[in-house]
């Protein structure tokens, strides 16, 4: 009996399975986000202190959450590549990096737009903002390292090492920037003793978080499919070149 990860190790089976799953995943993401946006704009009441600007939370918080989830996906994939040599792990790590970076960027931009009316400034050197910014640089480092090494197998292994170094360093970086004081509000959804947020705001937020996670999954699967197809095209091209060379040699003889 094969486990699901073993079965997915075969790219052909992955392509078949993902082709069937992807439309549902993308459709679910679109539907949940549409419902979440409806809740966020028309059902959720304006915040009693921040007014309408608090609605940016429904985009900001899921993005921030996915910026961390994205790095976790990369780190797990890196581990899968280096330890188990799972053939799809590298495809997954490569596909997740730009998506994670995009969500991190989105979290930074929406956060700074939210900061302007509430804190009176676009940017403060607060602990959380700084650690998300550094997370963004880690993503850029992963993408830059991969793109600057020509040998693809080598690039994927080295990027995996960097991703694992990053996952060790991330908590230390987070701890170090939190050593100072923070302006950002404390965690208010996932905490001991239940959420401090009012249910009328919490419910749309959770729907949006689910929708964004589905979106991330759909984009990730799509990017993985593209990467597999790109590699196949490359292999086919190489085979074509070899056949042409062999043909020319035969003609010369």
């Amino acid at each position: 009996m094969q486990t699901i990860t073993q079965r997915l190790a075969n790219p052909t089976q992955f392509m078949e399975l993902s082709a069937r799953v992807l439309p549902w995943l993308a459709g679910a993401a679109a539907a949940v986000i549409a419902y979440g946006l409806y809740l966020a704009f028309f059902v959720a009441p304006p915040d009693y202190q921040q007014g309408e600007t608090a609605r940016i939370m429904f985009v900001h918080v899921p993005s921030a959450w996915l910026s961390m989830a994205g790095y976790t996906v990369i780190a797990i994939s890196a581990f899968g590549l280096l330890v188990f040599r799972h053939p799809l792990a590298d495809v997954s790590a490569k596909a997740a990096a730009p998506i994670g970076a995009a969500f991190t960027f989105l979290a930074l931009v929406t956060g700074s737009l939210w900061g302007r009316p509430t804190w009176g400034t676009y940017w403060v050197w607060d602990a959380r903002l700084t650690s998300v910014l550094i997370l963004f640089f880690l993503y850029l480092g992963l993408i830059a390292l991969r793109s600057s090494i020509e040998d693809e197998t080598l690039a994927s292994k080295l990027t995996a090492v960097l991703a694992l170094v990053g996952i060790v360093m991330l908590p230390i970086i987070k701890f170090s920037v939190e050593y100072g004081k923070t302006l950002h509000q404390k965690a208010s959804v996932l905490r001991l003793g239940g959420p401090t947020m009012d249910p009328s705001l919490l419910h749309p937020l959770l729907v949006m978080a689910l929708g964004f996670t589905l979106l991330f999954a759909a984009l990730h699967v799509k990017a993985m499919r593209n990467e597999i197809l790109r590699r196949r095209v490359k292999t086919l091209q190489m085979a074509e070149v070899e056949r042409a060379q062999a043909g020319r040699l035969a003609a010369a003889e």
Partner: protein
Amino acid sequence: MKPFLTLVSRDLRLAVRQGGALGTALGFYMLVVTLLPLGLGADLNLLSRIAAGVLWIALLLSALLSLPRVFASDYEDGSLDILATGSLPLELVAAAKALAHWISTSIPLALLAPILGILLNLEIDAYPILVATMLVGTPAVSFIGAVGAALTLRAHRGGLLIALLVLPFYVPTLIFGIASISALLGPGDVLSPFLILTAISLAAVVLGPFAAAAALRMQMQ
């Protein structure tokens, strides 16, 4: 132990006799610190307030300059392959090279810092702790840097890439280095950030060589 020490002393001798590397790093350090008051204005009160931070950041940048050479010259002339097939595990080879980088680059930079502190009107009380944080914090700079150097060995634009990969990992060292200095000058506990700084350096010394050796091994197959 003997091959390890031999490798360290070989690297140190190369650093001294080849020249250039150390001088360049020290010169760069002095120039960055000189340019800063020209850019920010020569207000001595302002300079005194930011001196420790400026000295630390300039030190990180100067140490970064010499990182690409940690493995590159040995990789190019093939000595790294000989070292890899020798009796010393690759982890210890990486550790020896990072240690040599620390002794030949980071320590001189740390010792130059108080002299540059005079230019920046750094408070006299802060000199011992400035040098102490730099001496204790720079092993992390060299050993994490060695990981970056190993990762970018075969990359294009290696030098610029190292900066992008490694600088985010220097954040904790920088923060706790500055925290102990500002705790001395203002309110707060000096010892606890200093101890955390030490812990980061020790962790980097232990873990860095493993990551660096893994990266090197992948590139030498």
